[in-house]
């Protein structure tokens, strides 16, 4: 990560003080670290997010129990040594299912936001850069897009495309896209007016080069901060869609479907509801806390 991105002081400082500028990356890194360490909660949040990423990637090696293996002699058993999180209504190990569930949540959370960035950033960039009629069209479509409450849009899209993890991810991604269009456009409007962009234009840089080399790197940190806000929302949205039966289909373990199943056995097997929800809660909380720290570190002026 380049700590200079957020606070890039373009052009002038480098020209006047070449020696100081050469020292800047290391000093910036140190300063950044000190700023991060001043927020221990964010460090803890970041570590927990990394642990969840590791769980998602390493699920097959971390839990030996098959998360889809049913065992009729072990139906709805309370947490024990053999099954630390208990078992569900089909005798499946809850621990294994929660660990495997992190894979679905991470996948949905990260890929949906990547999709939103891939669609939203270019649209916002073009709208904010060229302005005029194109901007009007893009923004009116964005307004209409935003008028559908996020979840209702996602439910509608999944209904059209059919329930599955991929479709839920696409639906959530498209639901998050207008926010990215708006954010990018706003940032581009502010950045394009900066002297260094005008300077590069005066030197003969073309539109594409201006956008890719001068504008995009300078709005990158704000987009990244938005992603740390958006990913936990997307993770919850996937859980909700799966909970409603519109996301991941059984027997694939997902925290949302597990909670759906748990609802019928609240009296006899409450642990079925504890763990998947706790996992969502801890993961989104960690994302939010870590995101606060990242925002502090990158310190974009908009937040």
């Amino acid at each position, binding site marked *: 990560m380049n700590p200079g991105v957020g606070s890039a002081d373009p052009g002038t400082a480098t020209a006047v003080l070449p020696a100081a500028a050469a020292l800047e990356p290391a000093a910036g890194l140190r300063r950044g670290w000190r700023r991060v360490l001043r927020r221990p909660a964010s460090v803890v949040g970041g570590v927990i997010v990394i642990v969840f990423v590791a769980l998602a990637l390493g699920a097959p090696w971390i839990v030996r129990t098959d998360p889809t293996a049913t065992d009729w002699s072990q139906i709805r058993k309370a947490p024990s040594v053999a099954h630390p999180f208990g078992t569900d209504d089909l005798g499946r190990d809850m621990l294994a299912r929660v660990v495997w569930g992190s894979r679905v949540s991470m996948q949905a959370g990260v890929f949906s936001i990547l999709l939103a960035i891939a669609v939203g950033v270019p649209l916002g960039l073009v709208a904010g850069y060229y302005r005029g009629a194109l901007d009007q069209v893009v923004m*009116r*479509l964005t*307004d*209409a897009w*935003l*008028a*559908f*409450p*996020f*979840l*209702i849009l996602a*439910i*509608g899209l999944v*209904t*059209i495309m*059919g329930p599955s993890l991929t479709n839920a991810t696409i639906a959530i991604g498209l639901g998050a896209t207008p926010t990215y269009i708006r954010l990018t456009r706003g940032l581009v409007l502010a950045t394009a007016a900066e002297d260094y962009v005008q300077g590069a234009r005066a030197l003969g840089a073309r539109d594409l080069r201006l956008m890719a080399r001068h504008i995009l790197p300078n709005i990158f940190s704000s987009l990244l901060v938005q992603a740390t806000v958006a990913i*936990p929302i997307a993770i*919850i949205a996937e*859980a*909700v869609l799966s*909970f*409603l039966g519109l996301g991941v289909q059984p027997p694939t373990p997902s925290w949302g479907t597990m*909670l759906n199943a*748990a*609802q019928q056995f*609240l*009296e006899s097997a*409450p642990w079925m*509801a504890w763990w*998947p*929800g*706790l996992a*969502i*809660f801890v993961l*989104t*909380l960690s*994302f*939010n*806390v870590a995101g*606060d720290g990242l925002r502090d570190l990158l310190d974009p002026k908009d937040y």
Partner: protein
Amino acid sequence: MVEFLIRRAAISIVTLIVISVVVFTGVRMIPGDPARVMAGTDADAAGLEEIRAKYGLNDPIPVQYVRWAALALQGDFGRSIRTRDPVSTTVARKLPITIELACLSVLIALAIAIPAGVLAAVRRNTAWDLLASGASLCGVSVPNFWLGIMLILFFSVRLGWLPASGFVPFWESPLANVQRMVMPAFVLGTALAAVLMRQTRNSMINVLGADYIRTAYSKGLAGRAVIFRHAIRNSLIPVVTILGLQAGALMSGAVVTEQIFVVPGFGRLIVEAVFTRDYPLVQGVVLITASSYVLINLLVDLSYSLLDPRIRIGGRP
């Protein structure tokens, strides 16, 4: 001001037209044949054709759109395919339930958020502030459907204090109504409270640094009077805007909350309509949702410039 009003209203109308086209074509893309749903599984080809002809399902899509939009403007959204009831009366029956739920949750959210936000701002960087910020972070992070399940687990299953689900109209039994609404309203209000608290704290901190607050202090007013008479009132303006912007989140939240607590409101209606492929009902419900969201935001924009004359758009002082 008038110019701004017209411009803002025109944009809203364009948005509404785009929405209606999107909803109409979107619903047409849902897989499944509505004629078959209406006729049942044992209908023959002639029976299906009759239903298609009767409901105009064979006409070109643009023709169907114009016919539908013209009727929708008059408040006629067609009839539910499943129950044959007019969509408008179905919505009129369900909507008050969700509005009651939403109002209760906004009240709960405000009752938590404003005192907590003001306290956090006044006692900035103390344990109170930390506690409030921590609670706010937890509030936005907790998945509301899990919170709902946990509340049912604790208050209904474990303690037996509140009924886990269902709905009783207020006029039949106010007590039973509130008993069944308090948990869903709290669940729906949690995330809102978290967002509003953060906003109240921020704007309160801004206001407390303003010149007129210093003036109020320097003319000898007591701290309490400054905070209650001057600071809170002015810091609530941005909170109103956030409340409007959160209307969409509230509608999304209602879908899930009503599902968990089996509240027969608007949110549950959406899910039911989607699962039963009830075209006209889905269309009507989604259109009404999106339109009301556009209107709420229009009103918020207008109220914003009315509440605070400094921000009258168009840059006039």
